[in-house]
């Protein structure tokens, strides 16, 4: 065992399938002898799944988690649970009132003298905030989500895409020869990204999910394109909205009964 690595790193490497056989066996032997290592193992695994769900894992680690040993019902359930928590937390924190802390504000509110002043201040801030929000909303150019939704409408696309990227193959590793890297000019208006969908690919509807650090965007694609025996999904985006750097996409299939299945992940590097 390499002694220079701390235990967390060792367990993480183990879970990612990066230890050689002797290191792996040495660690697994500890599972049956040391009770504490099991909880650390479970916590590191849980964190890896959380990072996968949040889309922050590097492509190679992400691909490791999409390998066969991770495709057990139990681990799938854990990932589903983490994804649900992420959706819930984001929704709840995005809509909730400030958390009650029982500190300064409760003390101030408890004094009747301050109550009218606080109400007036809240009204003023709310009105100002609403006015700024409406002004900002009306004045701001539409974001990628709405832009793409419009561009993906067949009748709305003005002419051919100025550049076609792909077809992308799933599970590309950053830094390896298979990486899909594309140079686009700043003036490209409509960029078409083509995704090769691995079999089986027979869903009523597909969703392409674009993940960045800041947000997750979901684009619906109703019909895949059959091209020379391959099945491809096409996504038209505004080139101005494809920033230089790594872009991660996932494809989901939705069956007639509404069952959602993750199909594949893709990495794309944009340069200008």
């Amino acid at each position, binding site marked *: 065992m390499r002694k220079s690595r701390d235990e967390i790193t060792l367990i993480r490497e183990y879970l990612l399938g990066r230890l050689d056989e002797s290191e792996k066996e040495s660690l697994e032997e500890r599972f049956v002898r040391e009770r504490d290592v099991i909880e650390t193992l479970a916590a590191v695994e849980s964190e890896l799944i959380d990072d996968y769900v949040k*889309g922050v894992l590097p492509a190679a680690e992400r691909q490791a988690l999409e390998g066969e040993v991770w495709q057990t019902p139990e681990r799938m359930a854990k990932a589903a649970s983490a994804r649900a928590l992420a959706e819930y937390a984001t929704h709840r924190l995005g809509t909730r009132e400030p958390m009650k802390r029982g500190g300064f504000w409760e003390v101030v509110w408890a004094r009747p003298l301050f109550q009218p002043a606080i109400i007036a201040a809240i009204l003023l801030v709310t009105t100002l905030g609403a006015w700024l929000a409406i002004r900002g909303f009306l004045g701001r150019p539409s974001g990628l989500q709405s832009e793409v939704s419009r561009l993906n409408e067949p009748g709305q696309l003005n002419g051919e895409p100025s550049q076609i990227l792909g077809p992308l193959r799933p599970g590309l590793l950053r830094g390896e020869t298979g990486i899909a890297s594309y140079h686009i000019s700043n003036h490209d208006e409509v960029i078409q990204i083509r995704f090769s969908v691995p079999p089986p690919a027979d869903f009523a509807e597909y969703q392409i999910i674009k993940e960045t650090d800041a947000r997750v965007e979901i684009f619906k694609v109703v019909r895949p394109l059959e091209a020379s025996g391959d099945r491809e999904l096409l996504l038209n985006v505004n080139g101005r909205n494809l920033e230089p750097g790594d872009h991660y996409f996932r494809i989901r299939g939705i069956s007639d009964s509404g069952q959602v299945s993750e199909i594949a992940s893709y990495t794309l590097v944009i340069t200008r």
Partner: protein
Amino acid sequence: MQQDEFERLLAWLDQDRDRAGEKYETIRRGLIEMCRCRGCWEPEEVADETITRVAGKVKDVAPTYMGDPARYFYGFAKNVLREYHRRTSRPVPVNPIGPADDSEQLHMCLDQCMELLEPEHRELVLEYFNKDKKPGIDHRKSLGQRFKLKPEALRIRIYRIKKTLQPCIDECLSRT
């Protein structure tokens, strides 16, 4: 497993029966984790099969075996797991881990179960999973500072909170 085999097994693990019981549990749990991490779909079955087979051999092995019996279990488990993989053909995975489930029912259950957490734990888990925050090491670092937790402690805390939440969510979903 026969009762006398089980007794012999415990005696091999430790002369003190309580300590032997603890070692038995540690070995079983460890075998389950090992099988689970190697992609086994029925880790409990493989672990129990291993223990049953080892128990049948203790009479012959124990008198001459040197070292920690746990290592013997581990070595045996690798063979049982190999057999398991040979005889089971798993469906080809088409879904990278985790089908999404954002149903209202699930959100309702999360609402209920979150309320059962201590306020600080609730706050922590919500912030940890908040996708609006730029995730990664910086996010964890700032959470650690805010909740006065070192990285290792934060990892374990989140894991334990999730572990607490899960049975509540499962129970709620089965009710509704």
